[in-house]
């Protein structure tokens, strides 16, 4: 497991958002940044993660206010719509900014 605090070139330490710094949660948020919104089955398909794992991570991201989850029905099938919130988008942008700073 990697540390989530990285020493920058100027000897300052920057913290990578621990909520986003997880493979599955980052994959979900990145996909939503690219697509705008998605649904449970699609996220399951693109990440190849189990339904249970996706549910847990979606709940965490929702609790942080990064995602909006709407449960309903589409053509008589249960449908869970997931979309990224402005707060989630900002968190993602900040995360990428820190990553870039580290790599540069």
């Amino acid at each position, binding site marked *: 497991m990697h540390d*989530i605090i990285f020493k920058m070139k100027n000897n300052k330490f920057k913290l990578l958002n621990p909520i986003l710094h997880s493979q599955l949660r980052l994959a979900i948020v990145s*996909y939503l*940044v690219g*697509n*705008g919104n998605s649904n449970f089955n*699609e996220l399951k398909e693109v990440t190849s993660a189990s339904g249970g794992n996706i549910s847990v991570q979606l709940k965490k991201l929702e609790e942080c206010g990064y995602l909006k989850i709407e449960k309903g029905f589409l053509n008589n099938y249960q*449908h869970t719509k997931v979309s990224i919130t402005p707060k989630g988008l900002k968190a993602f942008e900040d995360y990428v900014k820190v990553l870039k700073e580290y*790599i540069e």
Partner: protein
Amino acid sequence: MDTEKLSPKESIALIGQMIEEAKARFTENGFIYVFWGLLISLIALIQFILLYNEFYAINWYPYLAVPFGMVFTGLYYRKRAKKRSANQFSTLIGNIWIALAINKMILGFFFAPVLGENLSPVILILLAVGILVSGTVLKSNVLILSSVLINIAGIICFKVNWLYQPLVLSAASFIAVMLPGVYLFMQSKNQNTGFVRNA
């Protein structure tokens, strides 16, 4: 995929991969272009045969298949929506095609006497606009080229004798809508877009 922590480089790679995945999934498999290209091509060809044989009163009857085509298209995309969520691009394309289809139907069924010989060229130019928007959003040079060809066909149609206008429409639909649809279909079949497969 689990909740394992990543190195910064792995994070960047994962972000890029997921954004590419989102982009790749927003592709058109070409089916709807094949369907409409063939349908309009056949309808226009039948209309030409009717006009050529002087069945003037019923020459527009083949166009009654268009509303059925629209219903089929609606059902097709409804089925697809179960598997794929709409994004801003698919919504944009969908709305543009709905607006164009409704306007073309209104022009064809209610304003044909007003437009007279200009109906087919106007329909072709509207079709070219729709294909151009789709081609631009899908970044498909084949569709962009098709839109140019359809636009040229539309302009040519203004100068063509009214009897042969349906033939131009038929040929344009076959060459510039159906054939690109087949190309997109083949491209979609060969495309490897799965995250697991890319991983």
